[in-house]
């Protein structure tokens, strides 16, 4: 297996980045420059499909969202650990599999705890 690479192999990523950035910047400039600007109290009002606005959007959010984000980061870290193992899956054999099952078992025990605690339940 030829495992060497050059930074030029990342050229597609760079091109994609440039395209995405260019699209966003161009769209923003064009909409700001060619769109009509009529300002009035009614036009500047934030609307919600015809329903009158209620309260302020910038209130402190529930801690549940934060917890979901924390859990996401933790399982993200776990997935990162899976990647180098999966590349060497055949070479590591049964031992590597058992080690990874142990690692996953720890995390899944935490996942079971979360479900039993009802963290993912809304209302």
């Amino acid at each position, binding site marked *: 297996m030829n495992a060497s690479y050059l930074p030029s192999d990342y050229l597609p990523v760079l091109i994609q980045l440039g395209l995405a950035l260019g699209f966003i910047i161009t769209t923003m400039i064009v909409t700001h420059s060619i769109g009509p600007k009529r300002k009035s109290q009614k036009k500047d009002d934030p609307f919600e499909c015809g329903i009158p606005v209620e309260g302020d959007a910038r209130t402190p959010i529930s801690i549940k969202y*934060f917890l979901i*984000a924390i859990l996401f980061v933790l399982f*993200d870290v776990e997935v990162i650990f899976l990647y180098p193992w999966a590349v*060497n899956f055949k070479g*590591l054999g049964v031992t590597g599999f058992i080690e990874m099952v142990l690692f996953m078992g720890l995390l899944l025990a935490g996942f079971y705890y979360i479900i039993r605690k009802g963290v993912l339940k809304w209302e």
Partner: protein
Amino acid sequence: MLNLIFYAFAALTLGGSLAVLITRNVMYSAFFLLLSLIGVAALFVLASADLLAVAQVMIYVGGVLVLVIFGVMLTHKPKPETTTGPQAARPNYILTQHRAWLWPLLVAAGLFTAFYSLISRIHFSLFEHRAPFQTSVDTIGKQLMTEYIIPFEIAGILLLAALVGATYLSSQGDRTNNQ
């Protein structure tokens, strides 16, 4: 060409970090942190540490930054005068209250000295018998599963502890809210 790309991404990283320090708006500094973290990921690629680059993008850019922004949304309480006065037109103008610089400077300088002395003393064995720009995922996977299996499983236990701790703390906050 390669040097040019390196300097561009190094400038992105440093500029982003400097902007984080300079701006007074917490939301802006979170977004400047995004630039800085992406720059670090690109520097990892140029140092042929591809797994680290993937981890940087997935964990820091995709996860930790969301946590930072959620932290701002969770703790920010708009003052009454900002919701009615002329400030109300700029609802995302969340200023930091913390303008002390001595202690952050001391902590940053201490961390820098510690990390610098560690990195300059470290012995990178991979540098000697590895061609430049070779993928490091294979080697990391093999080492992680054989030589460093104990730290690997301890990392699993650490993640489990973090899971349980986060659940415990947040459910406690829920209970006090309901009371």
